């Protein structure tokens, strides 16, 4: 039994112009202690995927196909109480922007204690002690005084530490971190990343790290999902993908990294941009931007090809291997 299993997940948003699929054909499973990275351009569906693991897709959106199983239980079939029992307790999520995540009118203490009290019978004083202990774990100085403070009295980095501490309160099995450092100062980014990694390793928590940053991914995760336009187009061991990406899109992402570029040369960008969800593309979603695309690519969406430890959704994998482009 996998801890978390996602089968053929499809999420759609009902827009005025019709329904659009924000996620489709999503399949993966996660075990205790796994560290998984999700990368992809803005709008690829990373956050939507994170939220659907908690069954937190809200109004215009809904899960329209497949399922998410937590310990073999389908989240869609759970009662409100059973869902509450998973959210914040077994799976917690760290949001992108710590400035928006904490409620501005409640103290840090209130926002921590309420979470403990929602999940178990515990009096205020004991809850306070646990809160202080968790704040210490995320290296917040003088945690007692923080409890009485409001979010606006703290810096962004401090707030994100508090959000992480809240995520740890119930010792969850899975933590989903949705770009936890994008909104922070560059100097603090590495600290927060290290903190999350350390906490996950120490407590044997499975981590799902969503990010734009392939550099971070290679340090923090051991498995990688590359998303494009609502699909996972390549997944496998992080090392393998970083060293030898099979999908032209992943190759493009890696070549666009600054450290992959020779000094003085221009950054290599993938030409074009990801289509918005309501433009219909037949065949492979990536083919309009792909330099390897051939006729087959415009006709059907590729099934996964297994290549080493990786699964790649590309028609041209074999062909690219036997005859690499001359430019490379």
């Amino acid at each position, binding site marked *: 039994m996998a801890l978390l299993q996602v089968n053929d997940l499809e999420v759609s948003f009902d827009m005025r112009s019709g329904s659009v699929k924000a996620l489709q054909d999503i399949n993966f499973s996660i075990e205790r202690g796994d560290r998984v990275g999700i990368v992809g351009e803005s709008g690829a569906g990373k956050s939507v995927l994170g*939220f659907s693991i908690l069954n937190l897709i809200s109004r215009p959106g809904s899960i329209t196909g497949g399922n998410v199983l937590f310990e073999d239980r389908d989240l869609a079939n759970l009662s409100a109480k059973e869902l509450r029992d998973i959210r914040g307790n077994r799976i917690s999520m760290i*949001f992108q922007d710590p400035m*928006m995540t904490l409620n501005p009118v409640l103290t840090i203490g209130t926002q921590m204690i309420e979470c403990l009290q929602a999940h178990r019978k515990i009096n205020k004083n004991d809850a306070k002690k646990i809160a202080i202990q968790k704040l210490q774990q995320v290296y917040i100085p003088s945690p007692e005084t923080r409890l009485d403070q*409001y979010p606006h009295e703290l810096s962004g980095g401090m707030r994100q530490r508090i959000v992480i501490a809240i995520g740890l309160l119930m010792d969850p099995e899975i933590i989903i971190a949705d770009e936890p450092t994008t909104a922070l100062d560059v100097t603090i980014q590495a600290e927060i990343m290290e903190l999350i990694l350390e906490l996950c390793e120490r407590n044997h928590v499975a981590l799902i790290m969503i990010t734009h940053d392939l550099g971070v991914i290679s340090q923090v995760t051991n498995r990688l999902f590359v998303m494009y336009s609502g699909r996972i187009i390549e997944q496998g061991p992080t090392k393998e993908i970083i060293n030898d990406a099979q999908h032209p899109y992943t190759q493009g992402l890696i070549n666009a990294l600054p450290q992959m570029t020779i000094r003085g040369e221009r950054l290599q960008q993938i030409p074009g941009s990801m289509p918005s969800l309501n433009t219909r593309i037949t065949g492979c979603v990536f083919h309009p931007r792909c330099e390897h695309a051939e006729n087959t690519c415009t006709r059907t969406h590729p099934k996964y090809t297994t290549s080493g430890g990786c699964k790649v959704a590309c028609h041209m994998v074999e062909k690219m291997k036997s005859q690499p482009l001359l430019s490379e």
Partner: protein
Amino acid sequence: MLAFLIKRLAQAIAVMFVISIISFSIQDNLGDPLRELVGQSVSEAERQALRDELGLNDPFITQYLRFAGKALQGDLGTSYFFKKPALEVILSKLSATLDLVFGATLIIISFSVPFGVYCALKPQNWFAKTIMGLSTIGISVPVFLTAIGLIYIFAIELGWAPAFGRGETGSFLGLWDSAFLTKDGLAHLVLPSITLASIMLPLFIRLIRSEMQEVLQSEYVRFAWAKGLFPNRIHYVHALKNTMLPVITVGGVQIGTMVAYTILTETVFQWPGMGFLFLEAVNRVDTPLIVAYLIVVGAIFIFVNTVVDIIYGLVNPTVKLIGNK
């Protein structure tokens, strides 16, 4: 705290200055004070002499300063009709008007908050849709129609509540009289309070609903769900508190304005308040009374705004009135 007081004081002075200019212009242009003092039979020469003596021929500025100086000492002139200090006449009607404003505010708060919240939480529910539909109609129905409708149904047909006057009043420690203190007074309060409330209630329901809907979409509410909190806690602690912040600000201003809306309600229900008196004063061209009314209403407006600011500061932790603890 000091900065807050200074800001408030500056605002109060500015508002009072504008009101005093308007009031004075009215006094200067409405009716001829001489006619009130002397009859028609006085010769033109004598009139001029009297004008000079009274300072009516002085430049506008001089006259205004004289007016403002007296006003600062609480002297707003003598009512032509009542032959008593205008301010005293107006203030004697203040408690009746405040009864009405208070009653209407009570109704607005106790209905708009639950209805607005309900409509935000269950927008698809038939009851929410009914409330929203009624509030749309409510906004467009004129007050006098509401009043006449209420009088017809509840006073004339059903005979449940009286439609005229203030009824018996009780005295609060001998300092203040109020219709809230007697059964008869309360009965008399019902219809006019509902009428006055009907102007703002639909607006408040809509305001609370839309603010709450926005808050429910926020990241911190989503995070609260992700924490696995109870829905009640999310709705009534996380969302409602943030919803009420803008509502308090807008609402305070609206309740201040309601004092002015009392004119119509008081007239229809023959409620012996300032608004009723004001309309009479206008008919009688009793300028000192008109001026006194404007100034008292201005003062109430400033007072209400100050109270609202203080409440806002208490609810919103990001605003500090009293400096750092």
